């Protein structure tokens, strides 16, 4: 319990309680049957001839007649199921979250690492590793106040749905394919009234098919991609060179992020990107999670749902600009997504603190042919 600092019986008891029977308490078993049964009985109660007796303690309330109650049932049920119910539904979902703030991030990550049993599927000749990224990404248009200053003063930001499907060949020096498509765009914030913000225009690079050996989708780019580059996090060779001991991984991550100051937030940010690259081998994932568990300041934030609907625990590290979250399924140890949440001083001043500015889920499968989306 090295991350817990000095002896504090109250905190230790709270953490131990928060961890005990966690899998059962986090179970996401469907409650649909229970809900349906309740709705059937509620509908029957609403239309029955008798209302429950009033409590002698009640001091207010108006009991309506049978016909009125039945009529209200029909009207209200329609309203509840309709699109207008969205905010209430959202609120209800928020209310249903369990408090996980007392869990120790170190314990969650180490437990998750213990549970990783998945092995990477062996690719046969001619097959492809299929990686699908379902993202909500921020697209900002910003105007800097003065030349040389990095903080914009005016602008706007959209959150855009983007799907990227990537096919990586057995031999990564062969051609890769990435299909990109963008969907809905939601205005996250702006320095001017929303009505004056220009409509979102999809970026050309967010759509279409990209092809290239070694994942070199932009061959004209200045920073030339090199096949088998051990410094390129998108290529499998990068991960083959990494140590497996968590302490050695932390030291390596510190060194790798030295050009950015090696702050805990920076190390965590890069670590998340690597875990969620879709090409980190399963044999390294457990040790990598144990390494992230050793970074100062990582906390269990809350229960979170990924963009493809999977539920897990968000573990985050907050800086004043942004909190980066890694989303882990505590039952399987799988890394199921990542996201960014604006901190107290967001990078773009028109974004409210606490706003989710990116949300990504990653799925990997094996495809028999390039361009073919594997079945579940």
């Amino acid at each position, binding site marked *: 319990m090295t991350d817990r600092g000095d002896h504090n019986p109250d905190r230790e008891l709270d953490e131990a309680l928060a961890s005990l029977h966690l899998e059962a308490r986090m179970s996401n078993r469907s409650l649909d049957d229970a809900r349906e049964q309740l709705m059937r009985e509620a509908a029957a*109660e609403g239309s029955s001839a008798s209302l429950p007796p009033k409590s002698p303690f009640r001091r207010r*309330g108006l009991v309506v007649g049978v016909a009125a109650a039945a009529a209200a049932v029909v009207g209200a049920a329609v309203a509840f199921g309709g699109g207008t119910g969205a905010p209430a539904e959202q609120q209800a979902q928020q209310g249903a979250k369990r408090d996980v703030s007392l869990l120790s991030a170190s314990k969650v990550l180490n437990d998750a690492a213990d549970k990783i049993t998945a092995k990477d599927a062996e690719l046969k000749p001619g097959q492809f590793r299929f990686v699908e990224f379902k993202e909500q990404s921020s697209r900002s248009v910003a105007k800097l106040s003065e030349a040389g200053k990095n903080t914009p003063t005016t602008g706007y930001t959209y959150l855009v749905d983007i799907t990227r499907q990537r096919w990586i060949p057995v031999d990564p020096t062969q051609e890769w394919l990435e299909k990109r498509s963008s969907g809905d765009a939601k205005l996250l914030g702006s320095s001017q009234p929303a009505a004056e913000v220009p409509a979102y225009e999809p970026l050309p690079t967010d759509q279409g098919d990209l092809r290239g050996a070694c994942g070199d989708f932009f061959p004209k780019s200045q920073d030339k991609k090199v096949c088998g580059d051990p410094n390129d996090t998108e290529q499998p060779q990068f991960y083959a060179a990494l140590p497996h001991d968590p302490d050695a991984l932390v030291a390596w991550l510190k060194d790798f992020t030295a050009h950015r100051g090696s702050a805990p937030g920076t190390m965590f940010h890069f670590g998340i990107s690597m875990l969620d690259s879709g090409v980190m081998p399963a044999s390294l994932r457990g040790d990598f999670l144990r390494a992230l568990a050793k970074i100062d300041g990582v906390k269990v934030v809350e229960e979170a749902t990924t963009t493809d609907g999977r539920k897990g625990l968000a573990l985050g590290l907050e800086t004043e600009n942004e909190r980066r979250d890694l989303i882990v399924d505590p039952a399987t140890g799988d890394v199921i997504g990542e996201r960014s949440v604006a901190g107290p001083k967001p990078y773009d001043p028109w974004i409210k603190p606490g706003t989710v500015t990116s949300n990504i889920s990653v799925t990997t499968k094996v495809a028999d042919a390039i361009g073919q989306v594997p079945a579940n």
Partner: protein
Amino acid sequence: MNRIEERRAEQAQRAPDVDDTRPDLANADPTTAFARLFDTHARALHGYLAGRVGVDIADDLVAETFLVALRRRASYDPEQAPIRGWLYGIATNLARNHIRTEIRGFRASARVHALRDAGVEHDAQIVDRLDAQRTSRHLADGLASLTEQERDVLLLTSWAGLEPTEVAAALGVPASTVRSRLHRVRHKLQAHLRTAQEENRDD
């Protein structure tokens, strides 16, 4: 103005001071009110119950809790306490039929952690995890040895996240009793955990 319109007007007038924490179940349409109640509380309630009696029994108890709540909705007075205490009170009562399962579960957890503790892993990097496992073992043991009332107060507070006043409403005891009971039970469990730490130091 007919009676439905009257009722709607009255509800609209009252809307600002009526929130989801204190729904007027007796006067609301049951379908709407209970759909909302279920969507707001079922998942968290399931978590609380699953921690105590396992996920399978929790599935049944969640369904049962809301059905009992529906039938007894007139007994809930929003002016007396928020809905959570009342709802978790029903659930906790229903879970009492499964006390043996609950205690068996805690004893099993204590055994599992003890077995892992005696395992063959000796790598220095897992020392922290061994500590955590020992803590879990002692905590599970401690929970199994508590009285039913003590466990109710502790787990309604810790796992369900209820405030003392809500726990009081759930268990039908004064809030002052909840606070003193909680204080006592936490001390008892901390003694169990101290034992775990002394063992860790001896290794």
